């Protein structure tokens, strides 16, 4: 992957993000910039706040302090001329979310719908596409993730890797500007990890902007334009994979890599 020119405007811009869960300070002032077409991999030990950061990028968690901008648009709030923030109506937030695709560790496919219906549902309900249009798009995407022969299967009849690929197709069906991946291969049997990573690599090659929380160091090294290492709610180190993974400067990064490699 060749790094995108630094001049392009950021797709995601996180400034001074703080998140408290009660008394627990999970994010302690995180800054993050992701440029269009960039693949950003977030690494870090459990409890470092990386998943929380990702969930803040589409308002599944609401920041306690700081801001998230997607393509310059403030997430969750409207700022008036005097600089006062006004919370957006849930419908407006839902609209913002529809532009941001998310893939979960445990897939969260809708179990009462077939693979095809899973991919069709939000296109019809949210984007108001016609059934035929949504179906055509779903068929195309399921073929792309290699599941053309599994469209009429319910999630319970699919392997973990197949379910995760349906989940990716479901998110892509919304034509998102950015895709968020929350440990997409952590719940998979080892032999099924490869098929999901292959789909993600293909997506990266097509120029999708991606933020990926993962423990797959190999994937990070191969695909990431930008690697962020987090620990205890702060970004410890960031830069290209060749730097953060192969020549880490911080003790904590070295320590973590020694454990996972």
């Amino acid at each position, binding site marked *: 992957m060749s790094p995108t020119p630094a001049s392009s405007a950021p797709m995601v811009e996180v400034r001074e993000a703080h998140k408290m869960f009660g008394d627990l300070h999970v994010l302690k002032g995180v800054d993050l910039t992701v440029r269009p077409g960039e693949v950003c991999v977030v690494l870090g030990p459990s409890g470092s706040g990386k998943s929380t950061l990702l969930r803040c990028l589409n308002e599944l968690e609401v920041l306690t302090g700081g801001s998230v901008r997607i393509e310059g648009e403030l997430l969750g709030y409207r700022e008036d001329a005097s600089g006062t923030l006004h919370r957006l109506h849930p419908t407006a937030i839902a609209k913002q979310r529809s532009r941001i695709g998310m893939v979960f560790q445990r897939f969260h496919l*809708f179990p009462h719908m077939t693979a095809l219906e899973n991919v069709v549902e939000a296109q019809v*309900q949210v984007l108001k596409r016609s059934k035929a249009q949504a179906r055509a798009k779903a068929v195309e995407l399921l073929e792309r993730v290699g599941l053309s022969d599994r469209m009429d299967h*319910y999630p319970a009849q699919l392997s973990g890797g197949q379910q995760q690929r349906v989940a990716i197709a479901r998110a892509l069906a919304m034509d998102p500007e950015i895709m968020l991946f929350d440990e997409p291969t952590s719940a998979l049997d080892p032999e099924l990890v490869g098929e999901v990573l292959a789909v993600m690599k293909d997506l990266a090659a097509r120029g999708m902007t991606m933020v990926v929380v993962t423990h797959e160091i190999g994937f990070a090294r191969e695909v990431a334009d930008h690697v962020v290492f987090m620990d205890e709610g702060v970004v410890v180190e960031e830069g290209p994979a060749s730097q953060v993974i192969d020549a880490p400067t911080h003790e904590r990064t070295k320590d973590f890599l020694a454990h996972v490699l």
Partner: protein
Amino acid sequence: MSAASSTDPVPNRIHARPVPRPGRWIAAAIVVVLAAMAVHALVTNPKFAWDTVGLYLRDVTVIRGVGWTLILTVGSMLIGIVLAVVLAIMRRSDNPVLRSVAWFYIWLFRGTPIWTQLVFWGLISVLYPTLSLGIPFGPEFVTFETQTVITAFWAALLGLGLNEAAYLAEIVRAGLGSVDKGQEEAARALGMKESTILRRIVIPQAMRVIVPPTGNETISMLKTTSLVSAVPFTLDLTFATNAIGNRIFEPIPLLIVSAFWYLLITSVLMVGQYYLERYYGRGTGESKPRGRGPRTPRLGRQAAIKASGTAKDDPFLEVTP
């Protein structure tokens, strides 16, 4: 599989004698004898007056009673289901006023006997002789006489429906609560509105937890309608058969007539429940992918519900008045 042949894939197939279990045969024999005695006692005792049973099974008043009982059952369950969904959603609300009102309603209607409630609804026109539409605490526009609006039938229907709503609300709440939080999150991440999430994602999945106890409640309601004499509403099956029994001085055969009809309707309801459960259990079995319309074996479905660990196993959910 064929045992004794050269094509047996298991060359050393085990042919052992089963464990002798004489107890099973003895137990079966005892039960069969007891059952035969019970049937004999039913058939030969002239006091059951089977000819009278046959005579009144299709009596006009009895059939009409069956009709009214069905109307009361279906009507009160419909009132109950609609109100229960509203109450369950209120109990999940962020608004503390809505939450507490729903809690209070359930507390009140589950905490008092259905008989008491039915008598109360029957007396409503004594308590409030007139009903009116208008501005709360302000002027009234239209006024009705309570007696003409809430007749015995409506009092019975309301009494049963409002009581049932309290029980069903808890069932619906448990059902909504049984759906994995990740489902809501995934739907939200796709940009769905809260109302869409509830309608398209949460409720369809909650149904597989809600339907079985609701079927149970419907069967229970069928028989609870026999209490409407408390209102008093006098056209239902139990009142009709009791009245005939008292008139002809033969209460026992008429009890059998009513029992026959209740059993028949219950059996029909059980068939309906089976198909409803199968429909809402789709996607949770290991069955073949569907062509059109789901078909899932129940065993796989139950196993999936258990395996998911999401269903609440609360024995008090199915307790009826």
